[in-house]
């Protein structure tokens, strides 16, 4: 009995959300209707007085039918013992269906330009999970295995570079490497956007496997975006701190006055990414 209740509870969140909403709406409206009927019951005929109860009964059967429709049965054998058991169907969308590790699911037109001047035109796709650039050039599918040799990769109208980054400053610095999207025009300074896929893979339920139920894997993920800047195309990227003072700090002090005048004239808010890009484009021009 307890096991059946547990199965019922575990199956409950996998219900169709729409059915739940409809049921709740109907249930609440019926309760309101019942309340109104109660106050006027003396004046109404018997058939109308029992109408609300009838609606409630119909709704109850309707929902119990939905519950039954979610159920499936399976024949379980365990050693010499064998029995049939009923369970709720799990939400059985595949992991691949929910988790797309690419920036865009399809390949996009673009090119790869390497430091030695080689250029490959084709269709590109960025894998955020592995931080790899995949390409289809002519009829060959390629993977950029030496991304540090890559000068730039253009996918659609987006420009990507591969560079090391350093955070933390003096004392306890941290380093990493990866693909960044360049948000500014190419010049000395660049604002870079790093996208990484944070995947949290929960431990699969062992109980389901033992009971012969379908294997359900839960994966939650999020695309984490971080802004960086690069003061020289050949140097490391550093995390970008927003704000008037922090942004001005990244430029040479000789340029501060000129940039301050530009910020004032354009009424830029340096807490907004768009305005920071505008300022750096002005500096590069």
């Amino acid at each position, binding site marked *: 009995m307890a096991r059946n209740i547990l199965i019922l509870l575990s199956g409950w969140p996998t219900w169709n959300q729409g059915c739940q909403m409809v049921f709740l709406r109907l249930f609440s409206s019926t309760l309101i209707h019942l309340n109104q009927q109660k106050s006027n019951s003396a004046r109404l005929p018997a058939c109308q007085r029992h109408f609300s109860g009838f609606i409630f009964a119909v709704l109850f059967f309707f929902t119990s039918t939905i519950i039954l429709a979610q159920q499936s049965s399976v024949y379980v054998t365990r050693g010499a013992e064998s029995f049939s058991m009923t369970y709720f169907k799990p939400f059985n969308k595949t992991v691949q269906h929910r988790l797309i590790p690419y920036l865009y699911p399809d390949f996009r037109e673009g090119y790869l330009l390497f430091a030695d001047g080689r250029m490959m035109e084709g269709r590109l796709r960025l894998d955020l999970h592995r931080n790899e650039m995949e390409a289809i050039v002519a009829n060959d599918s390629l993977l950029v295995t030496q991304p*540090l040799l890559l000068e730039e990769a253009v996918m659609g109208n987006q420009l990507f570079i*591969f*560079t090391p980054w*350093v955070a*933390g400053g*003096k004392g*306890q*610095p941290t*380093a990493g*490497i990866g693909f960044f999207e360049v948000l500014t025009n190419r010049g000395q300074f660049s604002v870079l956007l790093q996208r990484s896929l944070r995947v949290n893979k929960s431990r699969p339920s062992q109980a389901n496997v033992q009971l012969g139920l379908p294997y359900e894997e839960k994966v939650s993920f999020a695309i984490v975006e971080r802004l960086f800047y690069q003061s020289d195309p050949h140097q490391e990227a550093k995390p970008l701190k927003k704000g008037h003072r922090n942004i001005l700090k990244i430029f040479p002090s000789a340029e501060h006055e000129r940039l301050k005048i530009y910020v004032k004239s354009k009424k830029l808010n340096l807490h907004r990414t768009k305005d920071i890009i505008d300022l750096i484009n002005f500096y590069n021009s």
Partner: protein
Amino acid sequence: MTARFGSFILFLLLGLEATLTTAQQTRCRAAELQLSARFDTLHLHFELSGQGCDKAARPQLYFHDQDFQIYKPANQITDSLRSFGGGNDMLISWKINPSSWKTDKQLQPFVVTGPAKDHYFGMGTEAALLSLMLPGLGDYFTGSTARQRIRPWMRTMGVAAFLSAGIYASGQRYRTEPRYFDGRMWSSGEVVNKFFRNDAEILIGAGVALWLGDVIWVAIRGNQNRQLKKNFNTLIIQL
């Protein structure tokens, strides 16, 4: 007598903490680590400080990731900048190998100045016991405190200030005379606090919270040291 003995112990412990601030300089260690990259090469600038640096073996660069897995970069080039700076400035360069460096790994450098087997990461979780004795004390044993924004002595002083203010407020709290009417108590006296309402409880609570926070902080750092030491002695991945 007991109060005098208590203040003597407190002075002794504060003196011990002041000694430990300078005592961190005894071993030869790398400080002021600074990373930079140029093209495909990663550079680590650092200073060697402490005793025995002249006799120390060639400094070796290692990394650890978020999970405290240890990595050793291959083909690292060590260079001394002593002739330029006049101090013990050092530079280690390493040509990045993107095929072995997984892009989801964020690497934090550390430098081993002597023989690898003798490298000391700092005290383990047992340092939390020291912080339990005196707030901030355990921090000096778990690693460098030079780059901490809230220094351990600040925590010691903070806890001492909150607790002493709380104890003082508790001692200064009193109740006004009750009011009588017709020979019977009409209303009990009001509680008068020294600083603000429930001042003693709030101040002592803040002091205890700060103390416990320090103990937890030291325990976390100690646990990191323990994991680093364990991984350093078992598995080092070549980058």
